[in-house]
């Protein structure tokens, strides 16, 4: 392995130099230490998520009702299937990575190339899936009304199925107001996109549909969200309804507490950023493999080091999956 031969007379002695502490090379050990510190960063985020969840334990959104979509299957209630698929893709790309490391140990350049390539593909599928997941989450599905206190009121029919705003609210053409843009008025004042409906229109819609009820954020003893009676529903919307919310962003969230959306964007975003940088690093190593850098070095340890990072990303996802989608 080493190109120079030096005899210092201290071979075999612990402090004579050339001894790897803990039988591990410098680079690998530093990768492990980085992973420990990064693991602590992620656990800080996840523990903060747990803090907020325990703080609002009786009104936190139920993940099964938030992530119910599957690409190309519109209107089909498919909780978790897509995220299970994403988990599998990431575990699979972890497997191809460890196979690449193994092929590296046997100095098999062709195999390392194939497995690195498959790992990169897996990573790209995962990042793409996450982008789709974000898109669906941001766009929203049913719409809701936010109260003065920041609580979310959703709509259900008498059987407890969710009802979307578009199914019972009609836009009042006379009352329509266009979005204020800085070019058409005060140049230093602007506003965000207006929701499709106003609160008044929602009240009208609710009054004219007897079978629509309001569902609050509060989780009852059966583990389901509380549904109000017809009279209570009208009273709540009329008294407290302040804004119509469609989809989710960092300020409002039609699924429930805005904190849920904040943590979702932050934690899955930070993880997605790790996957993305992992893909970039993998691509660099992939080209190095093709160019024969490690072949000449007679050592594929670089593959092993990025492999550690890649597995760590998978490891974090296992926890994100549990705490965002399962628990």
């Amino acid at each position, binding site marked *: 392995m080493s190109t120079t031969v030096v005899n210092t007379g201290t071979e075999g002695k612990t402090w004579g130099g050339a001894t790897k502490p803990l039988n591990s090379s410098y680079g690998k050990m530093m990768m492990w230490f980085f992973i420990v510190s990064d693991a*602590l960063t992620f656990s800080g985020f996840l523990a903060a998520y747990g803090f907020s969840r325990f703080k609002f334990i009786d009104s936190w959104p139920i993940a099964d009702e938030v992530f119910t979509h599957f690409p190309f299957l519109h209107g089909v209630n498919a909780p978790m299937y897509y995220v299970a698929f994403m988990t599998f893709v990431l575990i699979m790309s972890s497997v191809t990575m460890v*196979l690449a490391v193994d092929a590296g140990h046997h100095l098999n350049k062709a195999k390392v190339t194939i497995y690195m390539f498959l790992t990169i593909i897996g990573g790209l599928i995962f990042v793409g899936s996450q982008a789709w997941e974000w898109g669906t989450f941001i766009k929203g599905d049913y719409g809701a009304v936010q109260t003065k206190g920041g609580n979310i009121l959703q709509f259900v029919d008498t059987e407890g199925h969710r009802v979307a705003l578009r199914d019972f609210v009609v836009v009042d053409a006379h009352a329509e107001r266009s979005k204020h843009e800085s070019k058409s008025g005060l140049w230093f004042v602007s506003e965000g996109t207006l929701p499709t409906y106003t609160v008044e229109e929602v009240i009208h819609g609710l009054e004219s549909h007897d079978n629509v009820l309001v569902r609050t954020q509060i989780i009852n003893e059966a583990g389901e969200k509380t549904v109000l009676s017809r009279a209570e529903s009208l009273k709540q919307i009329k008294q407290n309804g302040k804004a119509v919310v469609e989809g989710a962003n960092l300020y409002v969230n039609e699924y429930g507490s805005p904190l849920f959306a904040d943590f979702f964007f932050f934690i899955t975003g930070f993880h997605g950023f790790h996957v993305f940088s992992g893909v970039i690093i993998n691509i660099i190593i992939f080209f190095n493999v093709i160019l024969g850098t490690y072949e000449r070095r007679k050592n594929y340890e670089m593959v092993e080091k990025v492999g550690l990072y890649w597995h760590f990303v998978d490891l974090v996802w296992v926890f994100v999956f549990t705490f965002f989608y399962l628990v």
Partner: protein
Amino acid sequence: MAHEHKLAIFRGLVKFKSNTQKIWGVLIFLTIVTLIEVGLGIVKPESLMAQVLGMKALNWIFIILTIVKAYYITWDFMHMRDEVKALRRMIVWTAIFLIIYLIFILLQEGGYVFDVYKDGYIKRDF
């Protein structure tokens, strides 16, 4: 190059002939665990909804299965099984100690804030 791999998992219950074979074996195991998790998450059996130590029994099962998965990813994919004991302990014990400490503090505090809103005079629900 010395790349000795320990080829037995489940405390020697299952032994593999080569490292490649072990990788596929671990993949099958991880897939089964994930399928159990997803299955339980979709079905949500009524019998597992009982409260155990402040959380639903089902949630405890999810957390335990997650830690099992994390163990096999670290031990077999990241080759922690093949590292020397000192390195292993340095990495794992440090992280586990600090994470448990952090989780304990934050969840304790979160529960306390919840109680203040619920039983105290501070209200946010208007």
